């Protein structure tokens, strides 16, 4: 089975967020980047588990510049066989999906696994658009994935329960929590990653369709008022007069 896993970078969750270029660009200065957790913990690790069970290969794909190489090496250290980097800056979800689809269409993948979203821009678009561009079925936000023959059996968490879905391969899946357990790269993997191929490919002519006008930080949280448990009247009056919610 040939598996392709999308890997992108995301700022570490402790990052202090700021913007440059008139609030149109995320300020990457001094930011620590990690592998987007949904890509790493769920899509990649599940891909590796399926390979270990059924045989085959796991290739990672990343749309981005050389600054992505460290996170790609980490994915290789965790166990991917080889990596592809489409050498261009990601413009928007459509552009990334087109680049992935343009690469994947001639390479015969049985399964394309992506994270359900990146934890920075939270676009959640790439999976659906990639599937459409490749004319493949798509299952989003899956928390479980098994393969039997040429059929995938997936589970999705839905309001109040679980939905079980079946789809034929080839298939695109966006992966959510529950799909696999995080794997920490070990020393053997880190050593092996040195010599695994990282193929840099020039982009197709796909362009983005949207432009970011401006980023704004969320409004600062106000001060917390602590009301004594005994003092119901004060609480009611604050909710009524200040918060104006009752």
């Amino acid at each position: 089975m040939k598996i392709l896993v999308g890997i992108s970078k995301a700022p570490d969750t402790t990052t202090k967020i700021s913007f440059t270029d008139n609030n149109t660009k995320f300020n990457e200065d001094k930011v620590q980047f990690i592998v987007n957790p949904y890509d790493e913990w769920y899509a990649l690790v599940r891909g590796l588990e399926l390979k270990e069970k059924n045989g085959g290969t796991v290739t990672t794909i990343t749309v981005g510049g050389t600054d992505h190489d460290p996170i790609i090496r980490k994915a290789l250290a965790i166990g991917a066989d080889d990596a592809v980097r489409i050498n261009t800056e990601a413009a928007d979800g459509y552009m990334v999906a087109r680049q992935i689809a343009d690469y994947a269409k001639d390479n015969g993948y049985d399964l394309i696994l992506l994270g359900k979203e990146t934890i920075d821009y939270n676009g959640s678009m790439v999976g659906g658009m990639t599937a459409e561009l490749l004319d493949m079925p798509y299952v989003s936000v899956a928390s479980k994935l098994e393969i039997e023959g040429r059929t995938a059996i997936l589970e999705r968490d839905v309001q109040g329960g679980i939905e079980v879905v079946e789809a034929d391969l080839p298939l695109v899946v966006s992966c959510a929590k529950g799909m696999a357990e995080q794997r920490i790269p070990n020393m053997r993997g880190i050593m092996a990653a040195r010599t695994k191929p990282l193929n840099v490919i020039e982009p197709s002519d796909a362009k983005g369709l949207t432009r970011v006008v401006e980023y704004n930080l969320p409004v600062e949280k106000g001060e917390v008022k602590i009301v004594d448990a005994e003092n119901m009247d004060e609480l009611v009056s604050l909710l009524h007069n200040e918060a104006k919610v009752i």
Partner: protein
Amino acid sequence: MRTDQYQGHDYYEMDELLTDEHKLIRDAARAWIKKDVSPIIEDYYERSEFPSQVIPGLAEIGAFGPYIPTEYGGAGMDQIAYGLIMQELERCDSGLRSTASVQSSLVMYPIWKYGTEEQKQKFLPKLASGEYIGCFGLTEPDHGSNPGGMITNFKDQGDHYLLNGAKLWISNSPFAQVAVVWAKNEDGRINGLLVERGMEGFTTPEMKGKWSLRASATGELVFDNVKVPKENLLPGRSGLGAPLSCLDSARYGIAWGAIGAALDCYDSALRYSKERNQFGKPIAGFQLQQKKLAEMITEITKAQLLTLRLGQLRNEGRATSAQISMAKRNNVEMALKVAREARQIHGGMGVTNEYPIMRHMMNLESVVTYEGTHDIHLLITGLDITGENAFV
């Protein structure tokens, strides 16, 4: 203990001087520790027990001989990778780092440097994978800072050596499969012997009652007419310089490790000072607390720079014993001071097991003593710069 919220601190952007691979190795070690060791360390420390279940994990992250060539089961990494792993281990607990230091620098290193090809093939892969744990016997009951005076000795009996004597304060001894033992031959020259568990007359009683390094096992090595096969002698080097070269490697690891302990104390103190309110504001806002925190990160940063440079020199094979000695002494003393200041910032909470500070502080009392006491390292620098020997 609380969940491990540790974050590294890199005030001078030293990460830029590391390779991506260094960072991957460091971050993997940190992630493994947070997952598998931080949740149990306090408990094992209190019970005064080595958590032997972490041995396979230590091997996985490459803590056992990362700089040993791959043909012997090592990872063939450089000295900075080794240092970073030691830093992350000691960030969690000095005892954890001690176990890995002994295995890497005091057991694998001498076998790699001074052993025969057969000895390397027999022991190194098993030590790298954690199947074997080793220990290093230099110190004796009456010879600590002065190991050259040792009385443990061996006699050539034709087809074997007969070993007699005793070693004290030996990390990992109670469960080690192999001990690198330093003993004098009939001419009074120090040699290394590989003494294996199960050899007749060889026992390893555990020492109890340590208030420090409680999560690391320490014991004796007792040799009562032990017949050691001749092929177990390390032929590559003899004299006091042989064990001292191993100490160079271990002290280098300790220099990194001590930064880890200091970083953990600083990290905890910084977080606590921002969360703890007194007189209506976070205690981080008081000048006296800021002085402590500012001095801590300054001293940590200086130690980081010193140690990274030492790593570069070691990679080039140029670091002198005296340079390594300075880093060990400076960094351990720095870590002890940081731990004491950090403890005060935590107020009363600082004396509890909710925070790692007291554990680090108590651990560091061993670290400042073993592998050459603080005083002995001052004498090493003193001798190096003046040419005058003040040891005797």
